[in-house]
């Protein structure tokens, strides 16, 4: 019991004293996960809208595959990216393995099906009416796309946050492609896993608290923005 209490006290001091190693890990985690979500959103948003609105043969099959891929285990993604980026792999010449770039690639691949699936589902349910209204009011295809993004901005933001949550909380993919190298590819989840195995709970607790605070902060911001007129 004392060990846990001491762990919390030490964790608290690490946070308030701006422990360099702790904050380096936090910043790296945020940079990697935010980059992955931003890159993913660049093609998930237009593609999800297009998929949601377009009628074509084989759409049902594609949507089933998409929904199924939303829950792909992160270690499988990690393994796939490792094989691609390893020295003998097709992209081995880039020398990206065990770098933050490899972690961003892995997390981008990990969150893309989730974000794409959620955006597709939202647009499929309610997008057609907005598209029709936009067209009737004289908007062209690009203006309709912008209109749909504006109308669903809070839904899309929540979907992107779901993607960010998946990215920042996963451990398998970044561990495999990043290697958990101190000062280079160590992020919050891989550090917690490592420190736990070493029995050093103070750093784990501090990072756990920070992860919870990030989650809480993100939720407060989203729900405040979701209904601005209230």
């Amino acid at each position, binding site marked *: 019991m004392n060990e846990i209490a001491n762990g919390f006290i030490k964790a608290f001091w690490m946070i308030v004293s701006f422990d360099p190693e702790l904050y380096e890990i936090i910043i790296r985690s945020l940079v990697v996960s935010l980059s992955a979500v931003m890159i993913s959103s660049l093609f998930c948003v237009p593609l999800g809208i297009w998929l949601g609105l377009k009628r074509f043969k084989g759409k049902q099959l594609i949507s089933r595959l998409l929904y199924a891929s939303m829950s792909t285990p992160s270690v499988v993604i990690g393994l796939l990216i490792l094989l691609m980026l390893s020295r003998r792999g097709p992209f081995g010449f880039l020398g990206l393995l065990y770098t933050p770039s490899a972690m961003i690639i892995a997390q981008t691949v990990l969150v893309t099906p989730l974000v794409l699936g959620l955006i597709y589902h939202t647009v499929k349910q309610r997008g057609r*009416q*907005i598209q*029709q*209204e*936009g*067209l*009737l*009011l*004289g*908007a*062209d295809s690009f*203006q309709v796309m912008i*209109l749909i993004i*504006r*109308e669903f901005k809070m839904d899309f933001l929540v979907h992107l946050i779901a993607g960010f949550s998946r990215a920042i909380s996963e451990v398998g993919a970044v561990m495999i492609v990043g290697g958990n190298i101190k000062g280079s590819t160590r992020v919050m989840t891989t550090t917690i896993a490592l420190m736990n195995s070493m029995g050093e709970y103070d750093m784990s607790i501090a990072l756990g608290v920070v992860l919870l605070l990030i989650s809480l902060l993100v939720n407060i911001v989203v729900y405040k923005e979701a209904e601005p*007129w209230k």
Partner: protein
Amino acid sequence: MEITVKNLLKKYNDKTVLKILDLHFTKGQITGLLGDNGSGKSTLLHIISGLDLDYEGEVLYEGACFKEENRQLIGMVSQKPYLFKRSVYDNIEYPLKVRGVPKQIRQEKVHKLMKNMNIEAISRQRAETLSGGEAQKVALARALAARPALLLLDETTSNIHEDAVLTIEEQLKVYHQETNCTIIFVTHNRMQAERFCDQCICLN
């Protein structure tokens, strides 16, 4: 805008939902479209609006087939219109904005429309918070903002208060007199059709 429908056949999953041999909507007339539920009134409006191009037969606009440019000349208001999640003012301004109308002219037009529809007091209110009658007035003002030559009204005045119905009818009459546009008005209310329309067509 003159509309001619010839040998129109619309199917959903091999089931015929609409079949019209010959139908003509004269330019500058208000035509009431009556018929039972499922008779294809809304389907016909969707086809004429250009939203549904998956049909057999011909729909001619001033004697020509549908072109993308026609969209700029057609306005439509449905029974449950979708208002964008923004203010009343921004909703009405939208069709002018996408057409690249300068801000000054946009402001004047939107204020005039809001005044005519008696919705000036709610101009800054968000569309999500409006009552059914207010929402219909905003949807109609938005459809009229671009001054369409063909106005399609799909049970626009159903389920709203009598006062709002009269305001909408009055403004439609004014707009019709100003522009000599063609109006196709779907309704279940025979009294209203007789009162408001120049001619009535019943779909079976």
